[in-house]
């Protein structure tokens, strides 16, 4: 085995000894990261669910291309095929004049008013559903313009206003998430750095001795960085576990309110991938906190 490998083994053993040898500062660091992970993860759960909700609303969004009265049903179907080829269009449904009237009648609950009509006043139309990536004001305008260009299309309606609101809401959720997340992340980093710095301070005698017997700065600091990573990962994991417990307790209480106001009552927890990112983030915070603490510790 090489000398470098022995040093690596030393770093790992030293980090483990450090974690076991100072349980109080280690516990405080883990707790700090765990507590800090909860609001960060909570924010992620909320913004994730808001996005899912908005996407769900967005998937119901569609444009309606009204066709000229002269367009026959078979021509309408061919126009539907043309509309399907427009970039950003997910699917197109042709609705004939008869189908439109039938839907109108159904919506009115079989009204005598409809039966009294001498002729069908409703135009045939194309119901155009948009792909998720096309649900932006610019893309909707482009699809609308392309539909207008198809011969036989008289008018295009719907969607722009809603889509603008949808886009704004999505941007707001995203910006709030990034803004709040950044503030929380910075606060977490400072708290973790100071907590780990206290742990480093508690072991300053050991650091001084290592320095006196010829340990390089890197040699003295690497075990602390490893400890920071381990503390951060454990803290992140504990934080996610606590957040999951809070989620499980809170969702049944909120279900009725969600159903009432949003028509939606099935919020999701973080995906396994996002849990992994949060734990890795905790490890990253631990590392960064330890690095800040180690760099600010003066050695003899």
């Amino acid at each position, binding site marked *: *085995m090489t*000398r*470098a490998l*022995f*040093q690596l*083994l*030393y770093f790992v053993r030293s980090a483990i*000894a450090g974690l076991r*040898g*100072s349980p109080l500062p280690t516990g405080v660091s883990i707790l700090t990261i765990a507590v800090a992970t909860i609001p960060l993860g909570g924010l992620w759960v909320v913004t994730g669910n808001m996005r899912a909700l908005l996407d769900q609303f967005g998937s119901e969004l569609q444009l309606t291309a009204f066709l000229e009265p002269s367009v026959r049903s078979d021509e309408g179907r061919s126009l539907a095929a043309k509309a399907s080829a427009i970039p950003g269009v997910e699917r197109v449904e042709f609705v004939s004049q008869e189908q439109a009237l039938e839907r109108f009648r159904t919506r009115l609950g079989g009204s005598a008013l409809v039966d009294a009509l001498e002729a069908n006043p409703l135009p045939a139309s194309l119901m155009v559903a948009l792909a998720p990536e096309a649900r932006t004001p610019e893309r909707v305008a482009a699809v609308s313009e392309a539909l207008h260009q198809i011969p036989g299309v008289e008018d295009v309606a719907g969607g722009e206003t809603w889509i603008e609101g949808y886009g704004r809401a999505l941007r707001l959720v995203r910006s709030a998430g990034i803004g709040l997340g950044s503030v929380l992340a910075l606060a977490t980093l400072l708290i973790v750095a100071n907590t780990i710095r206290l742990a480093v301070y508690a072991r300053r*005698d*050991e650091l*001084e*001795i*290592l*320095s*006196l*017997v*010829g*340990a*390089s*700065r890197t*040699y003295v600091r690497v075990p602390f960085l490893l400890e920071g990573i381990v503390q951060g990962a454990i803290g992140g994991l504990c934080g996610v576990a606590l957040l999951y417990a809070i989620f499980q307790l809170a969702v049944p209480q909120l279900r009725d309110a969600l159903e009432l106001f949003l028509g939606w009552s099935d919020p999701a927890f973080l995906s396994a991938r996002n849990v992994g990112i949060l734990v890795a983030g905790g490890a990253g915070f631990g590392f960064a906190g330890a690095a800040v603490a180690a760099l600010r510790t003066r050695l*003899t």
Partner: protein
Amino acid sequence: MSAAPAARVPGPTPRAGGDPLIRLFHVSKSYAAGQFALRDVSVEIKKGELVFLTGPSGAGKTTLMKLLFAAERPSEGQILVLGRNVARVGEAGIPRLRRRVGVVFQDFKLIATRTVEENVAVTLEVIGTPPREARARVFAMLKRVGLQHRRHARPAALSGGEQQRVALARALVNEPAILLADEPTGNLDAELTVEIMDLIAGAASRGTTILVATHDLALVQKYARRVIRLEGGRLVEDLPGGATA
């Protein structure tokens, strides 16, 4: 402070000679403008010498020691230790220097959370010595200082003399060219003082160059080695071995 021993003991025969391992050229150190901890000190110490550095409190003994293991930088002058100019050695060079210079302090400076064996082993660990080799060398060193049976104890369970022997074992286990001992017996009684000093003198007889800072004149007389005396930061006496301090 220990009681004065009854008579001088010559100690092991020194093998001093050859090129100086430590050289100071007009070295001064001031912490505040006009206040010198050391002033214009020039001295040479040859390989294998055991030298006592004496003087009252505040004479500059500890400052001189700190300059030699690069814990401080001189304000003026040059310091050569093992051929390196300590005044100019870079940050990366300091650990390399310290691996060849063992240091012992009055307050032992042991790691409280580690065992005796682990405390001694840190000197070998920092240079990447394979664990099996390190264990063997640590055991041999602890045997030399008479503490092999306490190797699994923690410092708090040891007496002051035992703790200083552990500190000495840690400083010597890497067979350094130079040993710096700053008041190594300052916290020990007369009997333990002799015990520790005999171990230090033994290291000198094996060729280690040793500088012992002490204000215990009885100790200086007993070992009858070269004495450098500081007062108010100035070198006021440099007596060869055998002369009365």
